[in-house]
């Protein structure tokens, strides 16, 4: 388990492989639930780095295809955008 503590799965929210394995053992066995339990994919990368890693790991671990793991929906604006830039989009 010591090794797994040093493997980072989600850089934005600082989630390790050890955290992931513990959550899976507690019964969080789909990506949507793991996202809310561990905040994986809720930081600035919005899951672009970590969710893919997590999906492949979980798929191997459970022996299930990725499509059955409930992949979270990507949400707008997809990449972090400065609020001030968005404000300029209002031409009403």
């Amino acid at each position, binding site marked *: 388990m010591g090794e797994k503590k040093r493997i980072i799965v989600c850089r934005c929210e600082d989630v390790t492989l050890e955290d992931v394995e513990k959550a899976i053992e507690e019964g969080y066995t*789909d990506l*949507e*639930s793991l996202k*809310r*339990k561990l*905040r994986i994919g*809720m*930081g*600035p990368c*919005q899951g672009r780095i970590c969710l893919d890693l997590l999906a492949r790991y979980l798929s191997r671990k459970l022996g299930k295809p990725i499509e059955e793991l*409930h992949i979270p929906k990507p*949400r*707008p*604006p997809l990449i*972090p*955008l*400065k*609020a*001030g830039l*968005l*404000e*300029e*989009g*209002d031409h*009403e």
Partner: protein
Amino acid sequence: MNRVIIVGGGISGISTAYFLTEKGFNNVVVVEEKYLASGSTGGCASGIRASFTSREHVILMRESIELWGKLSQKLGFFYERGGYLWLISSEESLKYFKELSRFHNSLGVPTRLIDVEEVEKIIPIKVNGLIGALHDPIAGKANPFKSVEKMAEKASSRGATIHTWTRASKIVTKGSKVIGVETDKGFIEGDKVLIAAGSETRKLLLDLGINIPLKNVPHHALITETFKPTLKPLVIDWDNPSKPYLVQVEEGGFLMGMELEEEPDTPLTPRIDFLPRMIKSWSSWFPWLRNINVLRYWVRYYVISPDHHPILGPVEDYEGLYVAAGFSGHGFMMGPITGKLLAEWILDGKPSVPEAENLTFKRIVEGRLIEEKAVIG
């Protein structure tokens, strides 16, 4: 079979499972279509207040606030009484809030009007046009996912069974009695069924021939990247007709939402005009927001009842049928007291807070509606 089935794994259903098992009744099964708190609970603003305009709301929310304090301590999740600030920029609203504050005070909720100087001491705001604010010091915020997760874990450890990714398709009845719930993973037998299914509630009841007048209205919200704690209270711009709110959540992101013109039962679809309009509504009050990155934007339903109060308790058309829905944007904050009252209704036949009896489905059938004016975001 002496079993309670709860349809819906949002805060209302999970809190009911928590309080049923706390009272020693453990034969509880929760069915949730997706993951826990995946509906209106998970998309909410996370605010908790008792500063409402009806006696029923004030009293129930006050009880709920007490329970939020106890539950967060006991189960270990984020809950903070950072207050609410209702920004006021018109004389008319000032007068309205003066009266409202007297009403709150008479029911033990210590709101008070504060001047612009005091507002500036509480939040980093540019006060252009502001003439004061209503401060609700006992209001606050909690973490929607964590609170539901911790209550669910506790309920499970006491014997409740929680099935996520299980869709309840039909409440099954025999004569005038409820006998179970049909799901996409099979039939579950039970003599008591609570429907706490948010936006799906209306459909489940319609199948039983019960017309519960709930409207699912999309509400939009966004969250920014995280910062150290800068904004303690949840802030509402009362004199903006869209009633925008802004709150800094546990992890440090700024969460904001506002009302857009939406027809009931519109699918949950992001709108291109939301992001600019949302930022614009707050950037003149908080110019520093312009330099912050927006991370994500989502849409969830407010399940609106005809009088903006939830429909709680037994549905008398069938023996063993209960409902907790139609919170009209206030289901998260009311969650703890909802669960406690429903557990009492189910096990003892009567809720411990008499005001709750004014909120049964019967009031809708008999046309005894209650008014609530302070609905936001």
